[in-house]
């Protein structure tokens, strides 16, 4: 069971990183970005294509990640340009369209057969007794922590962080005071696109490798972000890691392994029902 839980940590690290990105997007640019993992998937697939052109693996991955960041920035630009005053629902709908577009584009550009991703970090990092901890696991957990702490420090200790927080709370007021709303929003999109593309590229070799399955890692990542209420970075990280470990542990039991796919949905449903309980009560009255 411990082996399973630790094996799930790599996926948990990915959930945590994506959950942090989702939290930042919801807080700072008012979007639940359903295309967050699809951007990473697209970058990882591009890296395979670049590697086939005889680029070294690290360079191919770096190029794929950069393109992923640009694609993310482009989606951000579209929203900042045409939906600056729209509500979170309309803005998030654009990200659903982007998700579908990226999946379709992947089938067109890369074909319908799953690709084989080469691991950037092959092999184990260390063992504890009989339990092997891979390099991917170590890097993903570290990445989740570094991203969360780094974003927290950026938001609370830097001038640009102050501007981003102001923008998230009162976008119109911030703009009237000279905060460049459009530029900062696009920068957030580029930054989160870069982080998620890097995270997906690292983990992709250990995960399912077709575009749809990879893109729909957004579901457990959303569940993790929900645990932090799309506000708290620390809870998003804890939620992501815990969810990954739980899924890994469940996979160890044959009769329960199918349950691991339900866990994120279960968390989402329970969380939404719990947070909406007062609304329902008020309506009922």
């Amino acid at each position, binding site marked *: 069971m411990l082996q399973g839980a630790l094996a799930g940590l790599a996926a948990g690290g990915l959930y945590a990183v994506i959950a942090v990105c989702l939290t930042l997007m919801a807080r700072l640019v008012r979007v639940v970005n359903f295309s967050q993992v699809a951007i990473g998937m697209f970058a990882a697939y591009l890296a395979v294509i670049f590697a086939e052109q005889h680029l070294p693996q690290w360079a191919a991955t770096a190029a794929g990640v950069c393109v992923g960041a640009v694609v993310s920035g482009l989606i951000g630009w579209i929203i900042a340009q045409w939906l600056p005053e729209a509500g979170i629902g309309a803005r998030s709908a654009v990200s659903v369209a982007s998700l579908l577009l990226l999946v379709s584009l992947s089938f067109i550009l890369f074909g319908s057969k799953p690709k084989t991703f080469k691991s950037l970090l092959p092999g184990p990092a260390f063992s504890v007794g009989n339990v092997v901890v891979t390099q991917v696991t170590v890097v993903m957990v570290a990445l989740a922590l570094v991203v969360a702490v780094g974003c927290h420090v950026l938001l609370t200790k830097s001038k640009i962080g*102050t501007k981003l927080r*102001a923008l998230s709370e009162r976008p119109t007021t*911030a703009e009237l*005071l*000279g905060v460049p709303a459009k530029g900062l929003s696009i920068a957030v999109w580029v930054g989160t696109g870069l982080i998620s593309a890097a995270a997906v590229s690292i983990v992709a070799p250990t995960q399912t490798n077709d575009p749809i399955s990879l893109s729909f890692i957004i579901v457990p990542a959303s569940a993790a972000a929900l645990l932090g209420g799309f506000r708290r970075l620390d809870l998003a990280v804890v939620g992501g890691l815990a969810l990954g470990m739980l899924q890994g542990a469940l996979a160890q039991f044959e009769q329960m392994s199918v349950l691991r796919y339900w866990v994120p949905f279960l968390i989402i449903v329970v969380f939404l029902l719990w947070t909406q309980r007062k609304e329902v009560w008020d309506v009922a009255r």
Partner: protein
Amino acid sequence: MNELILDDVSVSRGSGPVVSGVSLVVKPGSLLTLVGPNGAGKTSLLESISGIVSTSKGDMSLDGVPLGKLSRIKRSRLGLVHVEQGRTVFPSLTVQENLELTAKSPAGVDEALELFPELHKRRGSASGLLSGGEQQMVVLARAFAARPKYLLIDEMSLGLAPVVFLRLLPIIRHIADSGVGILMVEQFAQLALKIADEAIVVTGGRLTYGGPAEPLMADPALLHRAYLGIAEV
């Protein structure tokens, strides 16, 4: 020419025109009070100057630069600061951070705090936790820290006790005296007129009075006629 000029400006919103053919001039160092009944188009007029809404007709210029299709950011870079209705602090930001957002230097923060000594001891507090009056002080100090050339103030008194509003009025006058041109929308007409150099009354989107503030303050009947749209402009 160093003035904020509106020439025959009209503004339309979903239901139709809300401001029709309003012209006014705000000079540096002067305080122009804009009064009028609810729904007269006062807020829409300010929002058109800062670029929140577009004008449907007319011209605007700031120190000779046409505002036309300039974005809000560009207008703010020209020295235009709009203090919106309500207490528009950034709640999770501390008082210090609210001021740092607009101040060009640390000295700018200190100068802004000198206007409101009571904020000194609260500078590390989240501004969302302050009282309504203190929040409005933060908003005004933040606008001052930006070193504006022209300041648009919308309904500063909204939701404040009159005693708190009376505390803010001399500060607004002080800011004008420092060389800032101020256009202030206010419902407490008699209080606002006391500190104003000039006044305009807008009723039903149209200008019904424009001139010195003193006659309006001295003669409530004139103010009433202007509110009813029957005074001479």
